[in-house]
């Protein structure tokens, strides 16, 4: 079953991303736990698209204003997840090395979330009953 393989692969990459994030906090040189606040952005990032999928009635329109607003907001959350460590590093609260690790972790985690949407949310028959 292809779904299981994809699920295992995605959880692996999610774990890799979280490892990068925790490395940026817990390594000997860094020891600052401020980057953990990007976890909030990870949790928030899929929410607008979930809401838009629920709200927009699935007609044959290929797009809708609601869905575009959701993409806009999701992009904002993703950009914020990248902006926060850069600002923290710029004000010398965390080091630039830690910032780089957080950015790497961000990229991996958001690609994982994107992968979830592609693998499990691509079809029109997406519904919560599948879960």
């Amino acid at each position, binding site marked *: 079953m292809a779904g299981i393989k994809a699920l295992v692969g995605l959880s692996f990459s999610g774990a890799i991303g979280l490892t990068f994030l925790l490395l940026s906090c817990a390594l000997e040189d860094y020891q600052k736990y401020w980057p953990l606040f990007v976890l909030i952005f990870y949790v928030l990032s899929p929410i607008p698209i979930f809401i838009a999928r629920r709200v927009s009635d699935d007609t044959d*329109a*290929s*797009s*809708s*204003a609601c869905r*575009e*607003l959701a*993409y*806009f*907001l*999701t*992009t*904002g959350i993703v*950009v*914020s997840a990248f*902006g926060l460590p*850069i*600002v923290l590093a*710029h*004000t010398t609260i965390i080091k630039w090395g830690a910032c780089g690790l957080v950015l790497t972790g961000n990229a991996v985690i958001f690609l994982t979330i994107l992968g979830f949407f592609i693998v499990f949310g691509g079809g029109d028959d997406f519904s919560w009953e599948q879960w």
Partner: protein
Amino acid sequence: MSGFLDGIRCGDCECNVDWGERRNTIASVAAGVLFFTGWWIIIDAAVKYPDEGQFHHAYHTCGVIATLAFLMINAVSNGQVRGDSYSEGCLGQTGARVWLFIGFMLAFGSLIASMWILFGGFVVPKKPVYPGIAIFFQNAFIFFGGLVFKFGRTEDLWQ
């Protein structure tokens, strides 16, 4: 090892996405990147220069007005302005035009004001110039984000 480049093909890869269908999505994402990058630039400047003498807090008004203009411009659809939408709305076509006019005036006004702040508030008095540049880039990013969000999308895909 011989011939292992034979499998490479140009042009007809399987991942041919229909860019016409995806146009609205791409425009939304691009606008989101511009808008929120602008706000993070000003956050960076505000954190870096918390002192009122170096970076007067009233200068934040400019970005707030730009954001308000962004919302005003994008809250009205193009169809409403042209008058070819199904419903009139509560103010009709004229109301939509006036609303959009005010929105664009605020957008241009904040962009011009940010340039004024950059030169009048930072370059000429010989202060550290980074907050002024941040204000200018914040307003420019928000302005162009608004334009991309407004004109990059097509409303034909909604029907």
